[in-house]
C-alpha cells in the first residue's frame, strides 16, 4: 500500500519554540489515521504544513507524492481540508456556498449542480440546501463542511477536530459518515482529535503527538500490546494516551512507541 502522506524529520520552529519536531509520519492509502494529542501539541501546525499553508523549518513532507511547498495548488485540488472552526457565508444559502467553492475548484456548468446535489445527499442535507447557513445548527455546519470537501472528489481528506462541539447523536453521525466515505469511496482520512473514544472506534492507526514530537504510532492493537518501561500493560487507548502524554521526551517509553523501521512499499 502506498503512502498518501509521508514526512521525514519535519520540524517547524516559531521563534524559540519547536512547534513540531522531527516528525516522521506516514499515512497509508485507504486508511483512517487518527492524529491524537493535547491542545498545543502541534497537530494543526502539522496539518498546515501538509497543505502548504505554512513552510516547514526543516525536513521533508510529501502528500500524494507532491511537495506542498512546490505544488500547493495541485495538492489542494486533490486534498480536502475541514478546519477546526469552519466558516460559511451566513447570508448565503448552503447551495450558494457550495456553488462558490465548486467554482473556486474549477468546476463549471452542469457538473457543479450534479456534484452539489450528490454532496448534499451524501451528508444528509439534501432537504436543507436552500436554507441560509445562518439557520444551520453546529452539526449541520460540520456536515456542510464535509459536503464542501466532497465537491472536488478528493483522494485524501484532512479533518481537524471534526466532532468538536457536536451532540452525541451528531458525533455518531459524523463518525459513521467518515467510515462510510472511507469504505465506499476509498478515501484516505487524516483525523486530528483529542476525543479518544471516537478515535478508537474508527481509526485504523493512530499517532500520538505531544509537545511537537510523535511519541507513539501504530494500530491500537499494537499499542495496547506494548508494555511500558515498568512492565505495566496498557489496556485501552485512554491508558496509552495518558501514559505517553506524561512520557519525558527521549525516554525509553518514548522509544517504545516509535514505529518499527520496516520498509513499506
Amino acid at each position, binding site marked *: 500500500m502506498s503512502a498518501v502522506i509521508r514526512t521525514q524529520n519535519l520540524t517547524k520552529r516559531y521563534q524559540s519554540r519547536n512547534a513540531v519536531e522531527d516528525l516522521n509520519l506516514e499515512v497509508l492509502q485507504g486508511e483512517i489515521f487518527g492524529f491524537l494529542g493535547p491542545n498545543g501539541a502541534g497537530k494543526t501546525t502539522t496539518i498546515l504544513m501538509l497543505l502548504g499553508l505554512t513552510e516547514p523549518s526543516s525536513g521533508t513532507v510529501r502528500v500524494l507524492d507532491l511537495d506542498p511547498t512546490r505544488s500547493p495548488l495541485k495538492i489542494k485540488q486533490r486534498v480536502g481540508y475541514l478546519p477546526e472552526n469552519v*466558516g460559511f457565508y451566513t447570508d448565503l444559502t448552503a447551495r450558494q456556498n457550495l456553488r462558490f467553492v465548486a467554482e473556486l475548484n474549477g468546476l463549471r456548468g452542469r457538473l457543479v449542480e450534479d456534484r452539489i446535489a450528490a454532496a448534499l445527499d451524501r451528508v444528509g442535507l439534501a432537504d436543507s440546501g436552500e436554507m441560509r447557513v445562518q439557520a444551520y445548527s453546529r452539526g449541520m455546519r460540520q456536515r456542510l463542511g464535509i459536503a464542501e470537501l466532497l465537491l472536488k472528489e478528493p483522494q485524501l481528506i484532512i479533518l481537524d477536530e471534526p466532532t468538536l462541539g457536536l451532540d452525541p447523536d451528531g458525533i455518531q453521525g459524523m463518525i459513521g459518515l467518515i467510515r462510510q466515505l472511507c469504505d465506499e469511496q476509498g478515501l484516505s482520512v487524516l483525523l486530528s482529535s483529542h476525543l479518544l473514544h471516537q478515535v478508537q472506534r474508527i481509526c485504523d492507526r493512530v499517532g500520538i503527538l505531544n509537545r511537537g514530537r510523535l511519541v507513539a504510532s501504530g494500530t491500537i492493537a499494537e499499542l495496547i500490546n506494548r508494555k511500558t518501561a515498568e512492565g505495566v500493560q496498557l489496556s485501552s487507548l485512554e491508558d496509552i494516551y495518558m501514559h505517553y502524554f506524561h512520557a519525558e521526551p527521549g525516554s525509553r517509553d518514548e522509544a517504545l512507541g516509535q514505529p518499527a523501521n520496516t520498509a513499506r512499499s
Partner: protein
Amino acid sequence: MWTIFRKELADHFSSVRFLILLCLIVMVTLVITYMVGINLRQELSGGSKPGSVFLLLFTTSGRFFSLSQFIAFFGPLLGIIMGFDAINREQSAGTLSKLISQPIYRDDIINGKFLAGVLTIAVLFTSLILLIAGLGLLTVGAVPGVNEAARLLLYLLVSIAYVSFWLGLSIVFSILFRSVATSALAGVALWIFLAFFTGFCASLVADAVAPVKSRQNPEQVMANRELQQNIGLVSPVHLYTQATSTLLDPYRKTSKQFVLVGTMENISMNRFQNPLSLGQSLLVVVPYLTGLLALTVVCFGAAYICFLRREIRSA
C-alpha cells in the same frame, strides 16, 4: 479570481452599507447641483457667456462647497468604507481558512476584491455624473460640447482612480489589522490627515528646513514654496485636486504659483484669456496621475507582502 470578483460584486450591491452610501451621495449631489444650477442660470442670464458653461456646474460652489470639492474630500470615505473589512471580516468569520485551502492563488483573493470594489465605484460615479449632467441640462440649459464632454470623461476616470486608491489602501489596512474597527479607524485617520492637514504640515516642515529669514530674499522664499509644493505631492488628495481642477477648468493656469507678485497682479494673472486645449490640460495633469497610480501600486505591494506569506489559522 473572477469567481471571487463576481461574489464580491454581488455582496457589494446587495449590502445595506452600499445602499446607505448611495442614498447619501445621491442626495448631496442632487442638492448641490440644483443650487448651483439655479445660481448659474441667474448669474449668466445677462452679458456675454464664457466658453465652457457646462463644466462650471462642477466647479462653482453651492452653499458650502462645489461638486468637485465634495468628491475630492468625501470620495476617500467611499473607498475606505468599501474596503475596510475586506480581509479581516473573513478571518473572524472563519471563511478565510476555507478560501486559502481551495486551489486558488492567494493574490487572486485580494485582486478579486479590489476589482469588484473598483467596478462598484465606477458604476456609482458614472451614474452620478450622468445624473448631474442631466440635472444641469434641465436647470442651466447649457449643452456640453465635445471638448467639455471629453474633459468630463477624463474627470470621471481620474475620480475612479482616486477612490480606487483609497479602496486599495483600506484593503491593506484590513490585511494589517486583525480588528475591523481598527482598520476602519486607521483609514479614516489617514484620510483626515491627508485631506485637511497636509498643507499645514507642509508649511511647518518647509519653515523648519528652508526658513524664510527675510521676505525680500527671493531665493529663500522660492525654496520654501518649492519644498511645500513637493511635500504636498505625497498627499493623494492634493494630487487629485490639482489634476481635476486643471481638467475641469480650462482657464486655470498651472499649479505653480508666482509668489513675488502682489495680490492684484496675482488675480489677473491667475486666469488665461483663452482656454487651454485638452491636450495641453492633459500634459499638465499627467504627473499628478502618475503620482496617484504610483501610490496605488505601492499599496498593492504592501498588501501582497503582508498577505501572501502569512500563516492563517482558523481558530
